[in-house]
């Protein structure tokens, strides 16, 4: 994973609440065996309508997406995070995220930043004309107009993102503890093991 310390750029003022994973990327696109190329299918049903924010030349190359409550609800498809990444999005700012989506975003170095609705309203305004900056060190979102909103993230996630750490490597370093758990279960709860049918 590449380290993410700062994201700076224009933002799509999308604003919609309850954006579900089927809207981010529909099932037809899930047949791929690769992580690449899903940007083309991102927000297909939204982009089918004229005047949508994603095809507005004003926001060409935007790296931030601003949305409403409960972003990424629905399916567990990581394709949603891959599609956003592939369309050039580095961070999503919303009042809240579904649990699975925020985890999927994190695993792909995509920032899922939760800010209160008032901050979202202000950022939606700024996004129409100016860029937004997200700084992972100070955990803040700033604008050229001196707005400054701080956000929270668990320190483990913050560290992984800033250092681009591979989570599997981190866990494998704990293989002794994993083995100890397995031995404990094997001796005390033999029923745990599935019977080989």
């Amino acid at each position: 994973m590449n380290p993410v310390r700062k994201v700076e750029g224009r933002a799509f003022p999308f604003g919609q609440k309850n954006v579900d994973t089927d809207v981010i990327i529909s099932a037809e696109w899930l047949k791929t065996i690769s992580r690449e190329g899903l940007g083309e299918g991102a927000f297909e049903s939204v982009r089918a309508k004229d005047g949508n924010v994603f095809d507005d030349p004003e926001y060409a190359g935007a790296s931030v997406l601003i949305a409403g409550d409960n972003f990424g609800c629905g399916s567990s498809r990581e394709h949603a995070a891959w599609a956003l990444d592939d369309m050039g999005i580095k961070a999503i700012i919303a009042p809240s995220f579904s649990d699975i989506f925020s985890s999927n975003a994190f695993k792909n170095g995509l920032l899922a930043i939760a800010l209160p609705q008032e901050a979202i309203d202000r950022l939606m305004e700024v996004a129409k004309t100016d860029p937004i900056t997200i700084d992972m060190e100070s955990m803040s979102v700033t604008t050229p107009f001196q707005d400054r909103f701080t956000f929270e993230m668990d320190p483990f996630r913050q560290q992984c993102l800033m250092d681009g750490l591979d989570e599997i490597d981190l866990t494998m370093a704990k293989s002794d503890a994993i083995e100890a758990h397995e031995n404990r279960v094997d001796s005390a709860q033999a029923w745990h093991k599935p019977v080989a049918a």
Partner: protein
Amino acid sequence: MTKAKTLYEKIWDAHVVDQRADGTALIYIDRHLVHEVTSPQAFEGLRKAGRKVRRPDLTLAVPDHNLPTTARLDAAGNKVPIADPQSAAQLEALEANAPAFGIKYIGASDAEQGIVHVIGPEQGFTLPGTTLVCGDSHTAAHGALGALAFGIGTSEVEHVLATQTLQLSRSKSMEIRVEGLLGPGISPKDLILHIIGVIGTAGGTGHVIEYRGEVFEQMSIEGRLTVSNMSIEGGARAGLIAPDDKTFAYLKGRPMAPRGADWDTAVAYWKTLPTDDGAEFDKTITINAADIAPTVTWGTSPEDVVPVTGHVPAPESFPDASKQDAARKSLDYMGLTSGQAMGDIAVENIFIGSCTNSRIEDLRAAAKVLEGRKTADGVKWAIVVPGSGLVKAQAEAEGLDAIFKASGFEWREPGCSACLGMNPDKVPPGERCASTSNRNFVGRQGPGARTHLMSPAMAAAAAVTGKLTDVRELIGVN
């Protein structure tokens, strides 16, 4: 005296491998179900890094999402090729990856094949008190047996394959307490749709729900699976129902369930799992079962529910501006007008199936309504897709397939089918579907498809009348 604990806390505590100071923990995963859609990139990741699957014996793979539900073998017993090259490649990838990594694989034409969430319980792979994951959000279903089960993304699939653990933060606990019992003709699907209508699609975010109350004690395991399955539609990653004698009776003798002395030890342990008296939940929601009528959706979110006896709501009836806006968009997409009686909405398609409602009891409930009746003229497409080969065989032994076929339904092979529009079973644009699945999102059943979620008996009733119908009128319940 030790602190009173919830079922969730007991399972969590028994699976902590390593506790971090920041409150997150490395949690051991006892069971991992793998399907074709969310696994290819995970296996690819393992290959690139030269990693193995840590516990292939705790992993079970089966294709379901992509698989066409038409015959898998031709008359000569040869495999029928899959027309869509991308689907074919994805299915082949799983068929090759599973044995390459030593994982048991149930193939497309095997008798046990089916939807991951149907075969887990059916094979006795899902057990109370275990942690179970799958790269699919409806993994919440397995909580019906008292397993802590939740959907994960592909990176997490890879993490579990490599380490048999996940780095997680503890969820909050939410009690959904249902007072009283369901009225005649009201099903577990009506109950869970009603619950989602009450809590909303983000109501359970960050929480694990435990469903409590006499209604769940009386409910069959199939019904509990339907309820827990849709926990994710209420935003909760997992649902739980305390294991009891019904759970043990359901599991006993299943192929992968413990046997002999191990069975007895297991049951003794499982009996210690239910939430202790005095244990505290972070949040409690109380639902009155008597309030629940047969429930259907009118919009494009599973929280958009209304009794079938009700009317399409007016956008202005919602308190906040953004919900009003969402309701307008939903009505536009669904081609509905405020004030229209739900019972006047005509449907052209009927889908009975999905991990929510494709088990034997679901098929029995639908067949009971359809027996001696025909699908209405306006119904162009009606299919029944059993959740597994074993469900299909059971239904055939009971003669249910004959009832479905006589009434005008197609009787299909097991799979996810028209729940999600990624295999050939799709609802045409602009048409409506009375569907027993779990999501009515825009385009979920195919581009432009209009989904109304409901129970199997209600879908059967809609098939007979050609419009959304209160099934109680057809089965002599009032």
